[in-house]
């Protein structure tokens, strides 16, 4: 037996340790070169590490959630026993991917093609069908339902196969049909009984990996930063007109504009006048670094959790360039292939919940930055202009500032400035 010790490699950018997020193998598995073996998360990114060798897994060091230093032995392989030499080890397959099954096994359709055995007597010489018929319709996996339920379903045009019965052994009950009918077929499960039956299940979710990082970041921010939050509503009627014009006249290579690129452009223009807000505060040494460049963090929801990819030097970009760079980095974050560089270095962060934008929020500052802007959904509202009620497109913004280094008046001044720019969007481009 030849042992091969796999040590956590240097995964770049000065990373010294990583957290084990997921094992793709277990002891005894036969692993081939380049099979995925472990997911390790570093400060900024999660890396899936491939196996460097063919071999049998002898031992694994570290549980999910453990921090391991670069150079620590993670896995030992027996590299002699590599499958080809042993016939039966061929059957040991590479680790199965944990895939949520697409759906519950759908029961077979109820078929009555073969009815009951009947009592009859025949001598073989008689030319009549002597086929022994199966005596009923209890096919394995067939739908269980009372005749009344089956009749109702048929009349309602519902195929019982598509309904998950809430009764014992999955029996479809009237309540299951009620729900399916009430929801026009969108709910095929058994909500009514879930509501009625006490639920005792508890699911333990280990807070590891990115989730733990997010948790730490949030606590760090909230614990150390006294948040000062400020809300304003912005009349974006003109901005909306401009946006529609630009979108209708853009060429195919240009991205479709949302409000965000305009906000980014406005910020890049006005932040030099509010330098205390475009900064990072190192509270260990009590130094605020105010940045000339505008590096906007774009809070991005991904399947794995919250990421903040960064659009660097917005002041150097036009609106199309800002929009496409934002799309690029947030896309990279969502796909999990954002580089460390793309995920660091922001000096101000924008968070937008898009369609779920709501009226207001209290955004948490992306530590060690000192300000964050939340953008909410624009909608048509009745407002008073010149003593008249008129309908304007209104967008709310929420903002938070680090009150240690940004005074309330300064924060408010930034938002009011932003408001002026967005309400007369020509100013953004002057």
């Amino acid at each position, binding site marked *: 037996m030849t042992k091969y010790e796999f040590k956590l490699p240097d995964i770049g950018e000065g990373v010294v340790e990583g957290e084990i997020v997921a094992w793709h193998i277990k002891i005894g598995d036969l692993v081939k070169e380049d099979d995925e073996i472990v997911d390790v998360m570093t400060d900024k990114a999660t890396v899936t590490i491939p196996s460097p060798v063919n071999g049998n897994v002898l031992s694994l060091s570290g549980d999910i959630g453990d921090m391991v230093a670069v150079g620590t032995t993670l896995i030992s392989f027996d590299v002699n026993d590599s499958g080809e030499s042993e016939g039966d080890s061929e059957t040991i397959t590479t680790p199965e991917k944990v895939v949520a099954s697409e759906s519950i096994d759908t029961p077979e359709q109820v078929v009555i093609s073969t009815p009951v*055995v009947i009592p009859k007597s025949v001598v073989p*010489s008689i030319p009549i069908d002597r086929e022994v018929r199966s005596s009923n319709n209890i096919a394995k996996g067939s739908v269980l339902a*009372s005749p009344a339920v089956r009749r109702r379903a048929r009349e309602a045009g519902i195929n019982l196969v598509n309904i998950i019965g809430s009764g*014992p052994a999955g029996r479809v009950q009237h309540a299951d049909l009620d729900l399916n009918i009430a929801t026009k077929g969108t709910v095929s499960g058994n909500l009514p009984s879930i509501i009625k039956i006490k639920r005792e299940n508890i699911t333990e979710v280990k807070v590891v990996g990115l989730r733990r990082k997010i948790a730490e970041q949030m606590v760090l921010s909230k614990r150390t930063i006294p948040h000062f939050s400020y809300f304003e509503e912005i009349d974006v009627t003109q901005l909306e007109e401009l946006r529609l014009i630009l979108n209708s006249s853009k060429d195919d290579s240009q991205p479709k504009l949302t409000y965000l690129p305009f906000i980014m452009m406005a910020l890049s223009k006005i932040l030099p006048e509010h330098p205390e807000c475009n900064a990072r505060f190192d509270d260990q040494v009590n130094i605020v670094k105010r940045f000339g460049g505008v590096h906007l963090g774009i809070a991005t929801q991904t399947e794995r959790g919250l990421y903040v990819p960064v659009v660097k030097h917005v002041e150097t970009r036009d609106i199309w360039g800002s929009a496409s760079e934002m799309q690029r980095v947030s896309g990279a974050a969502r796909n999990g292939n954002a580089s460390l560089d793309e995920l660091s270095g922001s000096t101000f962060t924008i968070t937008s919940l898009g369609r779920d934008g709501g009226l207001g929020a209290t955004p948490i500052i992306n530590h060690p930055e000192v300000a964050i802007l939340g953008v909410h959904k624009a909608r048509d509202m009745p407002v008073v202009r010149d003593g008249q009620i008129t309908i304007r497109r209104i967008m709310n913004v929420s903002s938070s500032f680090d009150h240690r280094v940004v005074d309330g008046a300064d924060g408010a001044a930034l938002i009011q400035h932003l408001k002026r720019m967005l309400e007369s969007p020509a100013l953004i481009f002057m």
Partner: protein
Amino acid sequence: MSEIRKCQVLIIGAGPGGYVAGIRAGQLGLDTIIVEKYKAGGVCLNVGCIPSKAIIHAAERFESLKKHSSEVGHMGLSVDGNANLDMAGLTSWKDNIVNKLTKGVESLLKGAGVELVIGFAKFTDSKNCIVETKNGLINIEAENVIIATGSSHIDLPFMPCDEEFILSSTGALSLNKLPKSVAIVGGGYIGLELGCAMTKLGSEVTVIEGLDTILSIMDKEIRRPLELWLKKNKVIIHTNALARGAEIKGKGASRKVHINFDKNGENTSLKVDKVLVTVGRRPNSKGWGLENMGVRMDASGNFIRIDRQCRTSAPGVYAIGDVAGEPMLAHKASAQGEMVAEIIAGKNREFDKIAIPAIVFTEPEIVSVGLNPDEAKERGEKIIVGKFPLAANGRALTLEAEKTGGFIRVIARESDHVILGIQAVGSHVAELSGEFVLALEMGALLEDIADTVHAHPTMTESFHESVLKTLGHAIHSA
């Protein structure tokens, strides 16, 4: 053509399929005509289920009367003298029941506004037929046709029924004199039901069966009590025996049938008073113009091919009951008839029955609903089986229903306890079958039955107990 009639629904055959379809169609306000060549009620009421059960019941009575004769004095009850059988009297008592029921069917049809035409219909195309009645020909044109022509007794070509010496079941149900000896060709349910009754009435019965077992539709375990009863009552069973022919010999009162059959490669001859031929039934799909209707037959070529709504391949033409496939049972035909009437009335229906019960009225009675253990295993089910003897049921003892060694057997899926089948054998168990079928149709689990209170003292308790037995904790059985 003397008369041309139009209707929404035309039903051919007023048996348990056709007349139920007719009544339901009438209830639903459809203009309905039902054509019947003989009498309302079909084979079932006239020469099948009902008359045979009348004879079977009478035979049972006669048997117990004999037990209460002065010599035997069973149960401490005795009557002076001997029990005597007047076969003609019995037949006429039976005929009264049949007449009452067929009249009842006729008045139900009338009450539902259905026109009953007695005559023989011949189809010229899928929606038109000419009915030959005693008052002349009637031409009927229908929007919808329900074929419910039923089935007929199968004759053996080398010994056709003359209903004098060689009888079909029809002849056997209209005897004026009990034969001393009977040979029954075909040991299926019809032959055995009549064989048991005739044995009780006092005939010497011999069964000639071509297969290696009688009542092969039932599994070995469930037919065992019947086999024991037949043995105890000196019914002679020849299995693997093929009837070859019959000759009627002798003069006057001593005329007998000499029946010839091959068994184990040897030719045997037997002298009996009557031969009863019960080798099966064939669907009535010929002789009335079915070929003009554009209706496709099933793979066997015997039955009309239907879908789950009893539709045939011809639009607006439905087929129900025996002519539309197995199982050839009255209750299946009735259920289909009711459904088809509703479909024609525009309702959304489908024949989605989980189980159709099969019952054999032998001594003891045998009921099978759903799967037996072998069938369940063949379907790949992992099953648990529980059996409860009637001998451990109080009510069965008071009815002497345990004497035949009966039991109830429950088959359930091991994983989720869904009941897959129920069989019962024993005196009076036929009346338990309703609960069995209901259990299957409702998708009952063993626990559903276990948690249902069954009245004491009744034989239904033994179903409850057999379910408990399947769950491993019967109360009145080890």
